[in-house]
């Protein structure tokens, strides 16, 4: 005789009821997560998804079935007048497009992206990768992570992901940090970078995007509330301070140092230098042979300073950069040519200011760059 039937016969009816309750609770626990996902899927179905594969890349779409009858695509209205980009981004369900020109894939970057606390169903991702061997490796690694995330827990899934392969030639074969930062290589490198950024931006920017967050693939640490914090300032263009963690041998412990020098306030010296230059020459920051005496945001840090302190800037860096989509829609792009002797993100700030949009920086709010 096995013991189980005997014990059941002896059990108190109360414990049966308790067991039942437990079972219900357990089943609820199992199903509760997908049930949330189903609910958000319903929202997506109703308002955000498109009925055909020709939808904007910032929206998910329903796969056409093979046996589906051939029908004409519908006429879709986008009420762009109602689109907001405000300080209460999350409360107003404003969509964010995170754009990343990706040359190397870092797992830390992806993990940091997943830890962003802004509702993922309001986030679309866009990546552009160069052609070639390095690009192929990075694409493969990226796609593995994308597949994992998009089939995993529904609260972590992003609204949509677009992966582009670049059509422009990358002027430098090597992506090593040293080679990349050589002065003579800078103009060609940053021109190619601008083209990649523009290609990514103009093909993925949808009619329902409110914000664009530029996040470089080597940004491996940001506060999880990055989007909310930056959006709360309600500025057309806003950039946090980009630093790098490293092992300080003198102090014998981990320390931080400034990394991105492209966020600055202009100086008369730099202006005078620009006037003497040829039409296609560019001014660069962070090179001793070209001292511009600009005020760099990297050096505006106050120890234990107010993280919400704002500074108006004339040039911005693109490692992490939150832009209202309207600024890009008005035409502010990353010039791949010398625009007022500026190029790429710095030229972007200049072009935005020509269009009447001011750029701001947060000197005491940090994001961290990968250390090679």
């Amino acid at each position: 005789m096995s013991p189980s039937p005997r014990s059941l016969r002896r059990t108190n009816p109360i414990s049966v009821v308790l067991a039942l309750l437990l079972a219900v609770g357990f089943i609820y626990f199992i199903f509760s997560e997908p049930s949330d996902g189903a609910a958000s899927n319903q929202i997506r179905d109703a308002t955000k998804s498109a009925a055909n594969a020709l939808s904007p890349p910032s929206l998910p779409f329903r796969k056409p079935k093979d046996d589906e009858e051939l029908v004409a695509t519908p006429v879709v209205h986008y009420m762009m007048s109602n689109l907001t980009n405000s300080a209460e981004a999350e409360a107003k369900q404003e969509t964010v497009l995170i754009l990343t020109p990706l040359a190397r894939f870092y797992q830390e970057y992806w993990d940091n992206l997943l830890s962003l606390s802004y509702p993922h169903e309001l986030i679309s991702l866009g990546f552009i990768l160069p052609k070639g061997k390095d690009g192929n490796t990075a694409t493969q690694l990226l796609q593995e992570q994308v597949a994992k995330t998009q089939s995993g827990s529904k609260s972590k899934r992003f609204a949509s992901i677009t992966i582009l392969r670049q059509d422009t030639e990358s002027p430098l074969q090597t992506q090593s940090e040293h080679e990349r930062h050589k002065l003579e290589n800078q103009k060609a490198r940053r021109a190619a970078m601008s083209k990649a950024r523009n290609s990514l931006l103009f093909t993925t920017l949808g009619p329902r995007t409110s914000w664009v967050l530029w996040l470089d693939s080597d940004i491996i640490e940001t506060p999880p509330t990055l989007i909310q914090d930056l959006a709360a300032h309600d500025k057309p263009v806003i950039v946090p301070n980009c630093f790098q963690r490293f092992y300080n041998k003198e102090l014998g412990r981990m320390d931080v140092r400034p990394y991105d020098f492209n966020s600055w306030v202009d100086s008369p010296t730099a202006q005078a230098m620009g006037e003497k230059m040829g039409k296609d020459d560019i001014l660069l920051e962070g090179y001793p042979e070209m001292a511009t005496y600009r005020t760099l945001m990297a050096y505006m840090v106050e120890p234990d300073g107010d993280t919400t302190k704002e500074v108006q800037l004339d040039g911005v860096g693109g490692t992490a950069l939150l832009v209202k989509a309207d600024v890009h829609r008005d035409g502010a792009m990353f010039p791949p040519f010398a625009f007022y002797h500026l190029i790429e993100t710095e030229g972007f700030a200049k072009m935005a200011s020509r269009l009447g949009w001011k750029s701001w920086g947060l000197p005491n709010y940090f994001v961290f760059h990968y250390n090679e």
Partner: protein
Amino acid sequence: MLPSFNSSTTGGKMHRHGYSNGHTSYSLRPSRSDFEPHQFQPRSHNSLRRRRQLIYRLGILCLCLPVLLWFFPSLRTYILSTVTLGGLFSSSEDFQLETVRYYDLSNVQGTARGWEREERILLCAPLRDAAPHLPMFFSHLRNLTYPHKLIDLAFLVGDSKDNTITLLTELLESLQHDKDPNMWYGEISIMEKDFGQTVNQDVESRHGFAAQASRRKSMAQARNWLLSAALRPTHSWVYWRDVDVETAPFTILEDLMRHNKDVIVPNVWRPLPDWLGGEQPYDLNSWQESETALALADTLDEDAVIVEGYAEYATWRPHLAYLRDPYGDPDMEMEIDGVGGVSILAKARVFRQGVHFPAFSFEKHAETEGFGKMAKRMKFSVVGLPHYTIWHLYEPSVDDIRHMEDMERERKDKEEKEREERERMERIKEQFDDPASQWDKDKNDIKDMATKEYLESEGQQQDGQHKDEHEQPEADREQEQVPAPAPAQAQAPEKKEGEGEKKPSEEEKKSGEGEKKAEV
């Protein structure tokens, strides 16, 4: 437990064993007790209880499920989907929305024979108060020979005070519900965005010099919004087309594409009423840069915008429009620096790499001219076709309208005068007898008299009269005809046809009167 058939095959042996050993064998092999072959044994309480428990548990589960479904309605769809689709992973993924897309931009570079490679075109049309032109625009759309399913349409409707949006939606719906599937276009998006522009869209204020800079900048803004929202990684080409184009070849997309240029525009003219010369260059924004203009640009301040076609800025640039030869080779190309926006075909990669319509003063130009400048700056080829012409709708300007009103008034005055003249003539006719019959009668009398005289003299001077006989009637006829054509020729260039014919008869009458009077 052993299966029952197993025990029956070895039945004989066990039988004997059972007989010989009795209860010993039973106790040694308790598991075989149920299979005692010669004895009926009801199912044990044990198994019965087990079955009852199973039913009990199933019952509880069946009760729980509806309760769960009742409390969590979202579960129903989940269960329904897994049940209907077989509950397999693959099919549940089918049910999900597609969220990941992969594109290789080197596949959408744009080639000379795009229709063979199924290259997609984005057709952009910014609209404002454009309802009157929409039916014409849609007839152009229906006629395009480029495969419609490869063309995505994008419209930006802004600050419209008329029914542009409703009419546009109606026309698009009917286009997408056409019986012929070849009429259907690809993705169709209508962006509605009010920029709050105050600039008036009527012809006069649109083309006035003072309004140009700010108007061009706001037009540029609208174009950029439209493009950035509609451009996809699938597009190889972008075609900008104004809705007020009246005449254009159906094959315009292929014709422009064949040149395989980064940016290409046709020549744009417009038909005019006869009194203005019949036709006129319309789009003066396609031009080649000149030294004068570059020197002028240097003298202007940062936000100034040079606009073509105004006396304020004499640029001396060669314009695409003025180089047109109606019999020239339509494939002839011309390098240009500024482009007009009526009909631009550009490779999508031009826009992808960042060229746009500057809504600020870019090298002293804005909108489409600035676009041309920026494309050149980024080393793209910008080309115009001087002898390939499309025709813009003629909308009379305020001056033209004033002039036409003057002409109308003049015409009415003239008609009034003529009517008065005619009435006067009527009155004269009534006062005097109709002279025509009198004149005929007189003529006949003269003829009779002449014949008589002739017959009388015939007998006397028969030899010398042959010449006179022939000449006399001819001279007669000439005398009758001369008054008719002469005044008609003199007056024709000034007067309308009807008058031209009428006048001579009056003249005839006058002269007839005169003759009659003279005779009397």
